[in-house]
């Protein structure tokens, strides 16, 4: 069980986190951006699990549950908002939502 060093777990989490981050940066579709953020949150959850497993504590997993809750809440609000935006702008292009600047 303890054969997997924590570095590897954290590295995996880091890579997933960065992939999500890249996606947020390069995607213009708002839904994609939301998905990417979910990937990042998932990666952060993974990091907690890894750490929790390292310390053999349930705390990491509990944090994961909380992250899960938050992700769910956020996705629901986010999707509702995206629907709203789509109604307004007739597009999912995040760059189109740039009325406010300067």
């Amino acid at each position, binding site marked *: 069980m303890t054969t997997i060093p924590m570095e590897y777990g954290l590295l995996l989490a880091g890579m997933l*986190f960065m992939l999500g981050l890249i996606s947020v940066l390069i995607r213009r579709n708002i839904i994609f951006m939301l998905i990417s953020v979910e990937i*990042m949150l998932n990666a952060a959850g993974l*990091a907690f699990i890894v750490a929790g497993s390292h310390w053999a504590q349930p705390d990491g997993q509990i*944090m994961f549950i909380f992250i899960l809750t938050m992700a769910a809440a956020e996705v629901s609000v*986010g999707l509702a908002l995206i629907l709203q935006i789509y109604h307004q702008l007739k597009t999912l292009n995040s760059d189109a939502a740039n009325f406010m600047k300067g």
Partner: protein
Amino acid sequence: MTLTDFQHLMPLLILTVAVLVSMLVIAVGRNHKIMYVITAVSFLAAFASLFDLRDVGRYTIEPLLVIDGFGVFYIGMILLTALLISMLSYAYFEQREERKEEYYILLLLATIGACVLVISKHFASLFLGLEILTVSLYALIAYLRTRERSDEAGIKYLILAAFSSAFLLFGMALVYASTGTMEFAGIAAAMSGFTELPLLMLTGFGLMIVGIGFKLSVVPFHMWAPDVYEGAPAPVTAFIATVSKGGVLGVLIRFFMEVDGFRYPTLVLIFTIVAIASMLAGNLLALLQRNVKRILAYSSIAHLGYLLVAFLAGNQMGVEAVTFYLVAYFITTVGAFGVVAMLSDKERDAEQLEDYRALLWRRPWTAAVFTAMLLSLAGIPLTAGFVGKFYILAAGVNTQLWLLVVMLALNSVVGLFYYIRLVAIMFQQPEADTEVQPRGKLRPSIYLASVGTLTILALLLVYIGVYPSGLLQVIQGLIVSTVP
């Protein structure tokens, strides 16, 4: 969870109950006024319940929460601010076509989140409090969903906040990985062994700063602030500017004081850079801005920079200064956005500079209140902002943060320019030919809430500006005993 635990969580319980009651009331029948009254009363009741906790000392609800003088004061501050904002909201939303009732529920929820933040002593409660606050804010910002700008602001805040939350979480995970605990005290204990932070923990802290910095809207995580301020309804903007930031700052202070993060030059350097950059960028961005809400947004960025100066002082005086300044800043910001809200109409918020031209001659009292608020932001005597700024400078000088203090002084001057520019516009002579039609007025009873709130705020502003020792006493009394 024991009964004493519940007693100590009374303010939060009251708010939670209020949320539930509100939902039930909506289920029965929608009524703006009732919702408003429930909200206001619950804020008041929650605030009143704080008086029981005056001499709480340090009560912990393991492992998540700690209730101490610091927390009580911050909760009180948050509750009062939320109360004032809810009072301002009434007239504002009365004019809107949108459904009004959910707003109050979300406001209550967001306030709960902020309260949890300032009494949390564990990453889990920190995270949950922050997310309750944030998720409520998503909806609050986009509340006027028929407005494009409101939606735009909402989605920007949502994506960015979630994005930064991910950073925060990842940072927490790293810290947890490094120390094996998520409690502040545990982390502090783990850290106490090190003179230099281990890299893993440093990385964790770094990523956490990204998340926290975003919520505080300090440079370089500030870019959302003006757009969100502009897009959100004026009372919500006030809420973001005050309660949300105050809560985050509260937990930041608690965490940093607990782990004594000021020992580590890397962290101090990061915060110093962030503070200076915030002051500079905030003020410079606001300089020629023509949108009042954006001006206030940029100015809030700068003010967070100022607050970080006192925060960096890292001693008890610094904490007091931050707290005092927050009080002043809350009053001022709520007052300013209150004026914006009051002047707003059905179509749009009163956010263009043009809306304020010659305001003094049209609505002298509103203009006077706004002027007082702006002068307070600028740190001019007779206002709370002056004493606050003085306190920050004193804290900075005391710890000999000369660079920061001088930057603060110079930046205040830049800041002064746009505040008095706004004042000057209000004081301009009205042009004879453009007779400004007073906007359709609401029933006086509805206005009363706004006017009363603004009056209270203005009086408080001047009172604290002239006689700060009362507030000081409270702050010192509550914080002295509990700052670790």
